[in-house]
């Protein structure tokens, strides 16, 4: 029987988690999920990675928080958010009613706060996994974060893996010399998967005021501009790790997503694209299905890691 967009098997298997399709929404670009209800069918998503959560509510950085660059966006939101308790009380019950994998992006000012967030969330139902945001460039000075060193990555992941009852996805920073080294440290520490990349530490200058365009001076660059670097990193990491890789960075179309999968990603996250088109993540999944159809590919997972480099 010929493959049709309808019959294509889009499911993705991370081992610890089966997804309806390989497309998740990237943390911080999809709010807490519900904001997008009016624009797409949340149950058509592979999963939702909610905005980064600290234990308590957070102020975030002073505006301006966003600046557009050629094919890119620099943000310095600074993880403003409601905290896990409010999240569990107000948001999680709503999300539970939706049949889609919910991944919580876990943040912390220090290792103890990461542990506290995980401990609290372990007491809540309706969460498929934790994505450890050890790579946000917008909170400490000059982008400092655990993901910049294999040692701090290993220690933090090890501690959280021991504490958590749920699978861990460690989210890596691209602002490193060897992302493979960091990924291997996370794997050795027991992470169930890695997600990459987070944003690139960047600066935009306003010539007239002679000030940075962002209130926080530096910010994180995302969008199509970074895709070629992100794709390279995903390829490097996927070629070395046993743990599954979730790829992201500038994915705007199904073709972009398929390139990440060919490079070795078992699933992908769509970030900045959701700002441009609130329904982008679902469109990306649809475009994947149609590409598989036109290429007679019965299961999208057969594309994973098929990039020929010799």
């Amino acid at each position: 029987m010929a493959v049709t967009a309808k019959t294509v098997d889009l499911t993705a298997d991370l081992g610890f988690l089966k997804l309806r399709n390989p497309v998740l929404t990237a943390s911080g670009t999809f709010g807490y999920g519900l904001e997008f209800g009016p624009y797409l069918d949340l149950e058509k998503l592979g999963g939702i990675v909610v905005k980064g959560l600290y234990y308590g509510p957070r102020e975030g950085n002073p505006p301006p928080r966003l600046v557009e660059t050629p094919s890119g966006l620099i943000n310095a939101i600074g993880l403003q958010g409601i905290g896990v308790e409010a999240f569990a009380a107000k948001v999680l019950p709503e999300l539970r009613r939706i049949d889609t994998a919910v991944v919580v992006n876990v943040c912390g000012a220090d290792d103890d706060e990461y542990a506290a967030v995980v401990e609290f969330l372990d007491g809540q139902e309706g969460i498929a996994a934790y994505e450890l945001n050890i790579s946000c460039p917008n909170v400490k000075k000059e982008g400092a974060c655990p993901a910049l060193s294999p040692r701090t990555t290993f220690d933090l992941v090890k501690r959280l893996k021991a504490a958590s009852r749920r699978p861990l996805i460690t989210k890596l920073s691209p602002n490193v010399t060897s992302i493979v080294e960091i990924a291997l440290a996370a794997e050795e520490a027991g992470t169930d998967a890695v997600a990459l990349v987070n944003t690139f530490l960047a600066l935009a200058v306003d010539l007239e005021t002679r000030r940075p365009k962002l209130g926080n001076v530096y910010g994180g660059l995302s969008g199509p501009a970074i895709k070629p670097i992100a794709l390279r990193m995903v390829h490097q990491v996927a070629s070395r790790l046993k743990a599954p890789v979730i790829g992201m960075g500038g994915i705007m179309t199904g073709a972009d997503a398929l390139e990440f999968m060919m490079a070795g990603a078992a699933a992908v996250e769509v970030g900045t694209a959701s700002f441009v088109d609130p329904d982008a993540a679902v469109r990306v999944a649809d475009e994947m299905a149609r590409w598989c159809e036109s290429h007679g590919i019965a299961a999208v997972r057969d594309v994973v890691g098929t990039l020929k480099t010799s």
Partner: protein
Amino acid sequence: MPIERSARLREVRSWDDHFLFSVDAPAVGKEARPGQFVMVKVGEGAFPLLRRPLGVHDAGPEGFELFFRVAGQGTALLARRKPGDLLDVIGPLGKGFTAGRGLAGRTAFLVGGGRGIAPLYFLARALTGVGARPVVFYGGRTAADVPLRDKFAAAGFELHLSTDDGSLGFAGFVTSLVERELGRAEPAMVYACGPDPMMKALAAITARRGLPSELSLESVMGCGIGACWGCVHRIKGGTGDGWVKICEEGPVFPGERVLWP
């Protein structure tokens, strides 16, 4: 708040770098309330990356109007669109002005600075609809910055013009003109949209006189739908610990709640 991927640009009027677009988009037009805005794809393809927020200048069953000034790359691209072109817009978004029956028979001041005049036409029409009496203050740096004066006059709204350089109407800031008129009339509400310095001044003026006001704020916007937390402003008693999302809880806020740096 539908995504209208192919809204037909029916008509374009322009004055130098100011543009008035009439767009066919029933779904958006029917829902829109004064003070709400839309997110418009200004380019074709992924350049520029982000949509641009533009206030609803007017709306009806058949669609809506936009009035914008070229401020940079995005609005410059949008300005190139010709009648018949299709626009990709999301909206109406945000919470608009309150223009309720409570104002019937009473006077409201509408203060627009430069491009900030955009949402006030729709508001003035709505106020007339509920039997209120809109008095419009429209200011700019120079005469070329107040191209909509004829449109407001033709609609029969009481109109006070000002220019910083005195090339048209009152010579000075529109806020000074408002202060002068406040001596004569006591409005039940002051609505405003314009550059931050004007809004700040107006907030002070209305506060001093204990007048209620509603200000439409601006910010760079990433998404327009409350997802990126990029558009925040300090608002008293809002959610989000002081930094409130303009796109979601605004862009219109009561003047007394808006905190200025």
